[in-house]
């Protein structure tokens, strides 16, 4: 076999590209889109969740319809449909100039995520005992006040673990953004590999960065869950608090 096409894994190439600006730029793109889409998705998802549990039939079925569409079609199709499709339909310069790949990615992923967050939010809201709403109402709170001050803060505790899963899933799903030509982490590795044929090395670099981000995020999530559990008798020990304790830290 030709020397140049040796199948051997080249660690030097791997290390070089692990901290390469091309990869970093892709990683940064992935993080930006994931974070912004997630924030958008959570906010819209909570609104949809409240609509779904509301007694107003128009609100609850509108939210149901929303979830039905965004959960029922592949995200890659949604990207194609609303990025290229809308550009075809709306032939105005002002729209074409502003409907950038990046904005389309954030908005479409955010809209998609909202459908999943709506279900998580609904489960969270329904997990709060009905007596809580009774008590809030009996004190003269409006539905909105009760929702914001009493129900949601309790629902959030139930919502955090599945929301963490959603974040991780979203992070990985941004790799389909190659469909609309965004160079995020996976696509950056792919483009580079097609130049130097170091597929194994470059895809490994991408894998390492995904794992790094997920690991850091998981630790932060565990810490958040611990904080939210404040006031519960048995505070769950998290990886983070355990590590701190083992290292001789003072927190319990």
């Amino acid at each position, binding site marked *: 076999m030709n020397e140049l096409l040796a199948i051997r894994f080249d660690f030097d190439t791997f290390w070089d590209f692990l901290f390469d600006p091309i990869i970093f730029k892709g990683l940064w793109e992935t993080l930006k889109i994931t974070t912004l889409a997630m924030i958008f998705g959570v906010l819209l998802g909570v609104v949809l969740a409240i609509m779904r549990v509301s007694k107003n039939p128009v609100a609850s079925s509108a939210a149901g319809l929303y979830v039905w569409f965004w959960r029922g079609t592949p995200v890659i199709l949604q990207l194609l449909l609303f990025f290229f499709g809308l550009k075809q339909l709306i032939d105005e310069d002002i729209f074409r100039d502003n409907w950038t790949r990046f904005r389309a990615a954030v908005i479409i992923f955010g809209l998609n995520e909202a459908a999943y967050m709506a279900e998580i939010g609904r489960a969270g809201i329904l997990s709060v*005992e009905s*007596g*809580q709403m*009774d*008590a*809030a*109402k*009996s*004190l*003269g*709170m*409006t*539905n909105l*006040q009760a929702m914001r*001050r*009493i129900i949601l*803060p*309790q629902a959030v505790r139930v919502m955090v673990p599945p929301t963490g899963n959603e974040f991780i899933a979203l992070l990985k799903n941004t790799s389909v953004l190659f469909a609309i030509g965004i160079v995020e982490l996976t696509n950056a590795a792919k483009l580079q590999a097609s130049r130097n044929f170091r597929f194994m090395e470059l895809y490994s670099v991408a894998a390492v960065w995904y794992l790094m981000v997920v690991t850091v995020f998981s630790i932060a999530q565990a810490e958040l869950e611990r904080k939210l559990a*404040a*006031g*519960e*008798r048995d505070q769950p020990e998290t990886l983070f608090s355990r590590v701190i304790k083992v290292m001789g830290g003072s927190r319990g």
Partner: protein
Amino acid sequence: MTEAMVRIEDAHKRFGKLEVLRGVTTNIARGEVVVLLGASGSGKTTLLRCINHLETLDGGRIYVDDEMVGYREAKGKLVEDKHSAIAKKRAQIGMVFQRFNLFPHLTAIGNVIEAPIRVKKMAKSDAEELARQLLTKVGLAGKMDEHPNRLSGGQQQRVAIARALAMQPKLMLFDEPTSALDPELVGEVLDVMKELAAEGMTMIVVTHEIGFAREVADRVVFMDEGVVVEEAPPLELLESPQHERTKEFLSRIL
């Protein structure tokens, strides 16, 4: 203004096919303490929840201080009020629940100040001052910053009473306030309720505590199968009930 704080006129309530209230009529006077007595399923809790519109009515009228809660009358028919109007009226009626229903994410004092701040738009410092007074009054001066799950059932229920009182209600509804408590904790909650009664609060209490009824109530209303069977001052009703159903019920619980 009439003498009656609460006027219940022919109240009807159904849950699906089950008729829970089948025409309840009674009045509660200002400053009166009324104990609602009856077997489970007799409709007493439902009646209480209809008074502050946690349940809708299927017929009849309930007036608190001469105003309907949750409804307005339009061409002789009942129309449900707007959310904000309902909330405003509920704010004047305190309610204490069997399962306490404290807000677990807030401390004791946080539970008490929440509604005064959000609903009455009271300044935080004023609300905290009021909450301190009330929590001290119910004997929990040392527990203000505890979360509910660090309090005993009796302590939780006393926080719940303080929470309701913080809205300075003109009427207090108690839904089996001691039924979920260990026997040794019942007394501390009843003591707070007795004190409240002595201060002249209008109270409607669903309870099986016959001792409380005998000692504190001005009147006992006995309900069975969704109607008021008889009502009388406690000694009269408890010692010489007129109706068979009352006698039968009392013989079972005394």
